[in-house]
């Protein structure tokens, strides 16, 4: 057994105006093959108009063990939301 083809993450824009979304991953020897394989594996039914591929090893992810310190500080900041402010009901368009 020789070298395994690297893993690539695939992102697809389903139509112009929308963002690229992660759809899954695949193996390919290089970026050209990754795009071609992504076309065959993830867009057999016109699911996309644009494909991004990035080798998985280049992705840095946050550590879920640190989710508390990462994301909880936003929890008690209700004043960042419009509903936090008490305004009269007669007030329109705000």
């Amino acid at each position, binding site marked *: *057994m*020789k*070298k*395994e*083809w690297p*893993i690539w993450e695939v992102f697809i824009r389903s139509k112009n105006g929308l963002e690229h979304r992660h*759809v*899954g*991953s*695949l*193996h390919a*020897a*290089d970026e050209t*093959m990754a795009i071609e394989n992504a076309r*065959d*594996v993830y867009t*057999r*039914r016109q699911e996309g108009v644009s494909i991004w591929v990035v080798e998985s090893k280049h992705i840095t*992810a946050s*550590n*879920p*063990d640190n989710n508390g310190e990462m994301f909880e500080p936003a929890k008690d900041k209700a004043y960042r939301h419009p509903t936090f402010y008490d305004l009269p009901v007669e007030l329109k368009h705000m």
Partner: protein
Amino acid sequence: MSLNIEQLEKEFQDKIDRGENIEPKDWMPEKYRKTHIRQISQHAHSEIIGMLPEGNWITRAPSLRRKVALLAKVQDEAGHGLYLYSAAETLGISRDELFDQLLTGKAKYSSIFNYPTLSWADIGAIGWLVDGAAIINQVMLTRTSYGPYARAMVRICKEESFHQRQGYEIMLTLSNGTEAQKQMAQDSLNRWWWPSLMMFGPPDEVSTHTEQSMKWKIKRKTNDELRQQFVDITVPQAEILGLTVPDPDLKWNEERAHYDFGEINWDEFWQVIKGYGPCNKERMTTRRKSWDEGEWVRDAAVAHAEKKAARRAELKKAV
């Protein structure tokens, strides 16, 4: 500050009980990881091996319409295998290891694919019954607790319904055809009915994995529940075709509001699982051959990619 294992396990179970999904980097019990690798890879292998019995008829499809549909279906199954291998790889096993487990016989695949496709009608019966049974299982799995597996299932389920409809259309055409064609369809139903029921796995009282799988929300229904659901859905479909389900004990049970059906031959099931089905050897030989014969292509692609990368690096230096 390290939590002990019981605390971690409890938090994990609470998360599942709250209906949250588990994602690749989350902490999970080793057994949850192992069970998933086993189940997802078995599922992936089934998609890949499942291409063989149908591939057998692509060149002999009776019309261009049937041929493009069958080609597209078999190509979809390859895609399903790939989605699932990718999901399994998020659990820390490599694609090569997964293939190796299949090719050495360490990993299993669905026993249904060890039956031969003897006539064109079998392509109809597979789409209708085998994909039909797979859909019931897969719809349940769209709500499974492991995120990457659940997402792969959503994608797969969207694609499956055409598989079943193309199969049923084949059965319908044959059933409305000449006496010989109708006979061919009936013969095919006779051969595929029972193996399709076996696809849901052993009965609940002997299924070793069910309890833990339910607790971890890997499965949300038992084998017997899924099997019953399949029978209830499929029997009326056979009636529309004017074909007879090969089970003398099959009868609507008013009280249960379900069909009662006959005893499944579990000896046959275990024989096929153990490798003594009609096509086990042939399937594995074919798969091994294509893996071995493809090796030079895989290696050449790597060599080409490395050469290109080296050339690019040199150009950069020169600039």
